[in-house]
């Protein structure tokens, strides 16, 4: 492919997208909404703190995190109980203080803890996995002022792989949102 900008919808090599910097949350949110109404789909917005509604504005699929956690929790619980039961009933049954081998009430604490543990692990690693983290290298880090994204600046990027992507149109469109600055984001 050539580096010369070509027709609409054709991705450009070496270009990740075009990014616009805003200095307040409201204009980022508005911008993102506008971009979506304008028909762009491959959007992403960056902010120093979670902004309510922004995710929807950049179009987010329903997350399956809760499901993962539920499953892990159940697995943990079953696993925990099985461990106790197996160890004290199957593997080596002993008469402990006249209590029956399967003193199930005594298994409850361990069962519970195991459930929580696995659920929590599921939560954290699930979240990271869904977010595609860790990702220490990312194109947006090429943007000079992007380090402000973790301070007090807000960014909206329209990715080059957006079917509607056209470098000039995108630039123009972003300009209409009167951002602080517009930059091309190289790969």
């Amino acid at each position, binding site marked *: 492919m050539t580096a010369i900008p070509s027709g609409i919808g054709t991705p450009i090599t070496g270009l990740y997208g075009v990014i616009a910097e805003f200095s*307040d*949350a*409201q204009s*980022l*949110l508005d911008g993102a*909404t506008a971009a979506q109404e304008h028909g762009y789909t491959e959007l*992403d*917005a*960056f*902010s*120093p*703190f*979670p*902004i309510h509604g*922004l*995710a929807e*504005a*950049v179009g*987010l699929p329903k*997350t399956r*995190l*809760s499901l993962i*956690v539920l499953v892990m929790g159940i697995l943990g619980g079953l696993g*925990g109980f099985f*461990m*106790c039961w*197996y*160890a*004290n009933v199957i593997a*080596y049954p002993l008469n*402990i*203080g006249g*209590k029956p081998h399967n003193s199930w009430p*005594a*298994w409850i*604490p*361990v069962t*519970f*803890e*195991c459930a*929580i*543990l696995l659920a*929590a*692990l599921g*939560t*954290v690693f699930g*979240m990271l996995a869904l*977010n595609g*983290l*860790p*990702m*220490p290298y*990312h194109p*947006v880090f090429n943007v000079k002022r*992007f*380090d402000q*994204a*973790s*301070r*007090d600046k807000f960014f909206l990027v329209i990715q080059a792989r957006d079917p509607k992507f056209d470098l000039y149109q995108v630039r123009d469109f972003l300009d209409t949102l009167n951002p602080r600055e517009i930059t091309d984001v190289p790969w």
Partner: protein
Amino acid sequence: MAIKDQTPLHEVRPTTQELRMVPERYLPTPVVEPGHSFASITDHISTIVLRKKTPIGWLVGFTLALFAVGLLTVSMTMLIGKGVGIWGINHPVGWGMDIINFVWWIGIGHAGTLISAILLLLRQEWRTSINRFAEAMTLFAVASAGLYPALHTGRPWFDYWLFPYPNTMGLWPQFRSPLIWDVFAVSTYATVSLMFWYVGLIPDLATLRDRATNIWIKRAYGAFALGWRGSAKHWYRYEHAYLLLAGLSTPLVLSVHTIVSFDFAVAQLPGWHATFFPPYFVAGAVFAGFAMVLTLAIPARKFFRLEDFITMKHLENMGKILLATGMIVVYAYAMEWFYGLYSGNPFETYMLKNRATGPYWKMYIALWVCNGLAPQLMWFKRFRTSTFWLFVVAMFVNVGMWLERFVIIPASLHRDFLPSSWGMYHGTIWDWSFFIGSIGLFFCLLFLFVRILPMISIFEMRTLLPEAQAHTEEEGAH
């Protein structure tokens, strides 16, 4: 431009002149002093970590803590070399300061997760500026607590037998034992707290990554920031996960001290064998935890000039919690007497009589003073809103909670069922060296934490600012 962020603290301090006109008492105390911007918050907190020169105060404190840790290592060598006999434990009293300190620390270790999780679920905004700190405290308290169960055994080098693993003996742990429950509860608690704390740190680590100037420091923070870039989608799942973790931690934090209380409640010793121990212990844990948060937050706030973020509102709220949980604990003490006397069980009755009039009566009285009387000051606003008095009360509670465990453990053991085997318990120098050592370990970790990590959650502070409120049209409409 990063250089510009390295400006000394006092220049960042906001001025709130117009507010000064109005008498203090008519003002609602906010969770962040006005006049702050995203930038100022970010810079103020991250600068504490990133500034080049380390304050003398920090160095001094850290060194002291290190000495204590040295003492701990010496004590550990003694213990493993000679045996637990170096402690004051004996035949009626099999557990002494080892388990007292364990329960004391683990109790303290409850505030953090509680503040983060429960208050988050309860949408208590004011938690924001203290949760990070409290969580760190939790972790380090749990670390100190963990020392004791691990080392109090007669043959610590066989501790791994407490974990379930396939072995050539064909043996497994005995899952009826509360000690095994402890193993699971405490390790789970440690793991989950750590993850909760770390997840909370990720965006701030990104902030530090971006603020730092030195490439290696950038890389260091960057590595742990996992490449966080504040993407909206990430934020969305992140908040989701954070909420879920909170939801999981809440029952966990309750379960942990419940299970610790089982160590005693499940036994049949008069003074241990009581059904109300779980709630009583949990309340005690919160009580102790908040006391410790106050003990640490008040000086830290002064030292690092964090008055704007840890405002009087926070301190006052914690004061209220002290009062509330304190009352629960006192209620438990009272119920102990009720059960004891109402049951007519001679063992229970004698146990209480012995607490009040036996050889350890001084301890018991002191316990009531520290945990019963001292918190009553919190009824009054002028004490609640005075850092001095808050600190004093907090110290009383710290001591009181230690005494509570002393009264429960040795003071119950030393006179149990058969008078023939009654005895006495006195901590030895090594008991104390361990205690001091564990405190040293705790502070050592704490000092490191405040030096290399933001002790206040930056991104959450940002959300507290009015500018953080953005609305989509449909919302804006109404």
